[in-house]
C-alpha cells in the first residue's frame, strides 16, 4: 500500500516503511484503542462515588500525592498511549468546564467503549455505532433536562448550596468535616459571586495550604493572605485603618534603560554624587509618607537603607509580592498599582480595615493577612491538615466543591445523584431504542447499557451487590415513575435521592454525557494508527 505508481509507471513511496515503526489498521486498531481506554477507565472506576478509593501517585521525582480526583490522577499518570491521552484530555476538559465529575466522565467513556467493542465483534460498522451513540446521547440529555429539578436559594438561605457541596465532598478524604468544608466553599463562592449577573470570579478566591494543625482548623479569611512577612522584623505586626500603596518600582535609585556611563573625576563630583544618592532615598520615602500611606507593598526588594528609613518613618512594608497577588490586593483594596514614585498620590492608595502578621507552629512561618478590604469580596481559604498530601487533596476537593456551587449559581437546575439520573436516562434511551429502525437500534441499546455502568460502579465501590442493587432500583423507578431513585451508597435507608439531598448540577451531568460521547465517537472513527518512529 505504501508504494504507488505514477502515470509513467515509475514507483514512488508514500510512506516509508522504516519511518513508520508501528502501524495498526482496521478493526485491530479500534480494538487496541478501546483496550487502552478501558485500562484507563478501570483505574478510575474504583474512585467513583462516596465510597470510592484513592490512588497513590508517585511522580518522577519520587514525590507522593494521594487523591481521588479523576483529573488529577490522569494528569499525574504521565500516560503515553495516544488514545489514553484522549481520555486524559477528556477529564481535563470536564475539569475546566465544570470542575466536578471528572471521574464519572472517564468511567462513562470507558463503559461506552467496552459496549462498542461487543458490537464491533458482531460486525457492526464503527460509524453506525458512533451515530447510534449520538442519537442516544441526545435522548439522554433531553431526559436529564426533563427530570431536572430547580433548586431555589437566596443569599440568606444557602442550605441547598451547602448540601450540593457536601455531595461533592462526600467522595473525598475530607468528608469527615464535610459540613464545615461545604460551608467554607459556599461562603467563599457567595462572597465573590454576583448573583444578579450570575457570575463568579474565581480569581478572587485564593487558597493557601499550610501543613500542620487539623482539618477543622481550615478557615476562610475575608481578605487576602500573603505568604510573606514584614520586611523588617521590628515593623508593627498589626495595622488598622490601612492605607496601602502598591509599588512596582524598587526602592533604589532609578536605572535608566539607556546605556550610560557617569564618570567621576574629582573629589567634588564624588561628594556630590554621594549626596545625590542619599537624596534619592529620602525623597522616595518622603513621597510615600506624603501620600498618607501607612503600609507599603512592593513587588521588588529594597535596600537595607531604604528598609531602615521605612522603619524609621513608621511605614511597615512587605516586599517581593508576586504580580498576581499584587493585582488581587489592588482589586480588593481599590488601590492603583503605582509604577513610579512620582505618581504617588492619595487617591491611588488602597484601604483595608486591618492588616496583621500571623505565625504558625514552631517553625516561625509567617503570613500576612489583609482583612476588611474596601471591595471586600476577595477571600482566602487557609487549608490546614495533618500532612502535605492531605492539605493538597483538601485544596483540590474544596476547589471542586466551589466549582459545583458556582455552577449552581450560574444555572440552578439540578439532577439527583446516586446514579439515579443515569438510570432514568438508561430507561428512556432503551425505550427510545425500540422505536428506531436499523442497526442503530443496537448502538442505542448499548448506550443504555453503558449508562447502567455508573450505578453499577457506585454500588460495587460501596460493597453492595451491584447487579442486584441495580436491578432493584431500575424496577422501582419503572414502577413508581420516580426518577429520583438511586443507589443508596451511604446506607441511609432510602433510595430516594431527593430525600437524601444528593444532587449534582444539570449542566455538569449533561456535559459529562456530551463529552464522553464525543470522545468515544472520535475513538471509534480511528481505523489506522501510525506511530512515527525515528529515521533509521
Amino acid at each position: 500500500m505504501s508504494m504507488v505508481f505514477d502515470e509513467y509507471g515509475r514507483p514512488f513511496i508514500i510512506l516509508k516503511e522504516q519511518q513508520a515503526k508501528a502501524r495498526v489498521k482496521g478493526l485491530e486498531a479500534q480494538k487496541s484503542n478501546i483496550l487502552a481506554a478501558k485500562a484507563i477507565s478501570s483505574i478510575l472506576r474504583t474512585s467513583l462515588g462516596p465510597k470510592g478509593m484513592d490512588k497513590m501517585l508517585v511522580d518522577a521525582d519520587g514525590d507522593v500525592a494521594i487523591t481521588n480526583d479523576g483529573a488529577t490522577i490522569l494528569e499525574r499518570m504521565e500516560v503515553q498511549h495516544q488514545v489514553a491521552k484522549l481520555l486524559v484530555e477528556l477529564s481535563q476538559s470536564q475539569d475546566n468546564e465544570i470542575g466536578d465529575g471528572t471521574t464519572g466522565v472517564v468511567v462513562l467513556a470507558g463503559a461506552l467503549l467496552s459496549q462498542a467493542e461487543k458490537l464491533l465483534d458482531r460486525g457492526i460498522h464503527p460509524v453506525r455505532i458512533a451515530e447510534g451513540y449520538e442519537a442516544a446521547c441526545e435522548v439522554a440529555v433531553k431526559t436529564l433536562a426533563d427530570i431536572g429539578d430547580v433548586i431555589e436559594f437566596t443569599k440568606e438561605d444557602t442550605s441547598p448550596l451547602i448540601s450540593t457541596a457536601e455531595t461533592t465532598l462526600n467522595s473525598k478524604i475530607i468528608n469527615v468535616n464535610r459540613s464545615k468544608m461545604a460551608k467554607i466553599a459556599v461562603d467563599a463562592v457567595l462572597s465573590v459571586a454576583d448573583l444578579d449577573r450570575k457570575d463568579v470570579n474565581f480569581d478572587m478566591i485564593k487558597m493557601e495550604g499550610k501543613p500542620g494543625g487539623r482539618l477543622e482548623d481550615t478557615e476562610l479569611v475575608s481578605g487576602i493572605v500573603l505568604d510573606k512577612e514584614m520586611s523588617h522584623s521590628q515593623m508593627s505586626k498589626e495595622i488598622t485603618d490601612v492605607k496601602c500603596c502598591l509599588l512596582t518600582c524598587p526602592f533604589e535609585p532609578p536605572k535608566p534603560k539607556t546605556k550610560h556611563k557617569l564618570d567621576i573625576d574629582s573629589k567634588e563630583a564624588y561628594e556630590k554624587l554621594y549626596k545625590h544618592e542619599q537624596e534619592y532615598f529620602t525623597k522616595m520615602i518622603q513621597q510615600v509618607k506624603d501620600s498618607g500611606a501607612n503600609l507599603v507593598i512592593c513587588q521588588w526588594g529594597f535596600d537595607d537603607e531604604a528598609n531602615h528609613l521605612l522603619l524609621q518613618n513608621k511605614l511597615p512594608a512587605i516586599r517581593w509580592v508576586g504580580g498576581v497577588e499584587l493585582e488581587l490586593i489592588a482589586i480588593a483594596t481599590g488601590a492603583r498599582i503605582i509604577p513610579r514614585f512620582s505618581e504617588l498620590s492619595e487617591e491611588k492608595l488602597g484601604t483595608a480595615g486591618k492588616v496583621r502578621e500571623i505565625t504558625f507552629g514552631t517553625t516561625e512561618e509567617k503570613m500576612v493577612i489583609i482583612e476588611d478590604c474596601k471591595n471586600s469580596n476577595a477571600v482566602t481559604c487557609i487549608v490546614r491538615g495533618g500532612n502535605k498530601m492531605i492539605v493538597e487533596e483538601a485544596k483540590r476537593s474544596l476547589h471542586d466543591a466551589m466549582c459545583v456551587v458556582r455552577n449552581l449559581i450560574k444555572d440552578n437546575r439540578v439532577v439527583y445523584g446516586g446514579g439515579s439520573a443515569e438510570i432514568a436516562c438508561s430507561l428512556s434511551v432503551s425505550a427510545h431504542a425500540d422505536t428506531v429502525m436499523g442497526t442503530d437500534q443496537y448502538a442505542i441499546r448499548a448506550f443504555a447499557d453503558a449508562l447502567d455502568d455508573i450505578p453499577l460502579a457506585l454500588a460495587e465501590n460501596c460493597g453492595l451487590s451491584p447487579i442486584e442493587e441495580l436491578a432493584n432500583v431500575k424496577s422501582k423507578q419503572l414502577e413508581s415513575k420516580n426518577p429520583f431513585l438511586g443507589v443508596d451508597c451511604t446506607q441511609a435507608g432510602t433510595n430516594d435521592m431527593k430525600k437524601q439531598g444528593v444532587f449534582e448540577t444539570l449542566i455538569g451531568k449533561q456535559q459529562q454525557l456530551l463529552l464522553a460521547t464525543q470522545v468515544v465517537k472520535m475513538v471509534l472513527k480511528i481505523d489506522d494508527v501510525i506511530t512515527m518512529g525515528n529515521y533509521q
Partner: protein
Amino acid sequence: MENAYMNQGAQVDKGENARMSSFIGAIAIADLVKTTLGPKGMDKILQRVSQNDQSISVTNDGATILKSVNIDNAAAKVLVDIAKVQDDEVGDGTTSVAVFCGELLREAEKLVAQRIHPQTICRGWRLARDAARSALEAHARDNKDNEEKFRDDLFNIARTTLSSKLLTHDKDYFANLAVDAVMRLKKSGNLDHIQIIKKAGGQLRDSYLETGFIMDKKIGVGCPKKVTNAKILIANTSMDTDKIKIYGSRVRVDAMSKVAEIEEAEKDKMRAKCKKIVDHGINVFVNRQLIYNFPEQLFAEAGIMSIEHADFEGVERLAAVTGGEVASTFDHPELVNLGMCDTIEEVMIGEDKVIRFSGCKAGEACTVVLRGASGHMLDEAERSLHDALCVLTQTVKETRTICGGGCTEILMAAAVDKEVPSIPGKKALAMEAFARALRQMPSIVADNGGYDSAELITQLRAAHAQGKSSYGLDMYNGLVADMDPLGVRESFKSKLQVLMSASEAAEMILRVDDIIKCAPRQREGH
C-alpha cells in the same frame, strides 16, 4: 497490557498488591522508630553515605531519624511527612505519631484480611477517634489561672519530654532550665529569642541559662573590653567604603593626585558616617557586616566598643533583647531607638571568648549554654532541649495538660471500648482495632524498657477500670502507678495532634487501592 499506555519504567500496583505494599512500607517505618519510644528507648546512629561526608549523628528524635532515611515506598513517605509536620507544629511526639499510624495500619491489615472493606474500617476509626478525642478533652486539666501550678505543669512536661532523651540523667536540671527560658518569653512563644550555644568540653550539668544574651563574637581591637550602662546601636550597614548605588557611575581619573583626592573623599565619607554614628550618643556599636580597620580605629578613638560581623539572627535577637532597632541610616539620631543593657563584657566559656550582654532592657530573651563531652552529644542535647522548648511554648499557648506514661492511651482505649457495644455493624470491629492500636503504645514503651508489657498493660487496664484514671506506667520501677505524684505530664496539644494526624494519615493510606509510579526521571551523566 497494564503498562502499555504508560511510559516505560512506570509501575502500577493494584488492589491487594497496592495495599500490601503500603502496609509493609508503613509498618516497616514505624518499626524502625518504634524502639526509640519512651524513657527507655534506644538511640540510632545515622551515617551519611556520600563519599566525602561520612559523618554520623546519634539521636532518638523520631523526626530527625525519619528525615534522614531515604525511602522509596510511597506509604512510608506519608509517615515521614506526618512526623515532619508534627515536628513543625508541636516539636514533640514525632516518634509517637509515626508509631501510632503504623500500629493502626497493622490492625487494619488484619481487618482487611477478614474481608472488611477499607471504607468500613475508616468509618469505624472515625467514630473511635471522636470517642477518644472527647475522652482526652475530658481528662485534660487546665491550670492557667494558677501560676504556681502552671509552672509545675510546665516543669513536669519538660521532664517527661526530656526523660526519653539523652538528657534524662539531668532531666530535672534541664527541665528547670527550659521552663525558666520559656517563662521569660512571657506569652510571645517566639523561640527565636532563646539562643542555644554549644561549646564542647565540660559535662552536661555545666550547661546553664544565661539571662542575658551571648554573642559568639569578639570585640574589636583596641576597644574597651567592658562597658557598663551600655547604649547600643545595632546596625546593618556596610562599614567599608559605601559602594555607589547610582547605576552606571564609575570613577575615572587622569592623574595620580586625583586618585589621592578621591581616596581622601572616601575617607571623609567614612569619617562622616562614623561621626554620625558616634553622634547617636552610644558606647557600643554592633554591625551585621564587617567593620574595616579604619572605622574600627575611629570608634576606638571615640571610646566605643565595636562588634563586627554579627550574623543576621544574632542581630535580630540582639535587637529584640536590648529593645533597639536595626538601623541602616544614621541621619536622624533622634528617631533611632537605641538598645540598652547594664553590662557588656567579654567572658570565657571553656576556652572560647564570647561577648555577654547582661541586664537587658527587654528581659524576654536568654541564652542557653550547652556543655558536653562531644559534638554528637551536644547536637543531640540541643535537639532534645529544642523539643522541650517547643512543647513548652506550645503549652503556654494551649494551657491544657494531660497525664503521661501511657495513661491517656489506656483512657482513650477504654472510652472507645465503651462505645463499641452500641455500634451495630462491622464498623465496631474497626473501633475495637483502634482501641487495640491505642493500647499498643504503652505496651511498646514497656517493651522498650525491658518489662513484661502484657502483664503491665493488663494491670494498667484493670486500674483504669477501677476508676483510677490517672494511673500509668512507672518506667523506673516497672510498676503501674499514679502519674500525678510522679509528675509525668504531657501537653494536650501534642497528644491531640498525634491522635488526629496519625489517624488521618492511616485513613489516607488505607483508602488507596492503586499505586501508580511514574518512570523515574532520567538523570544525566549516569
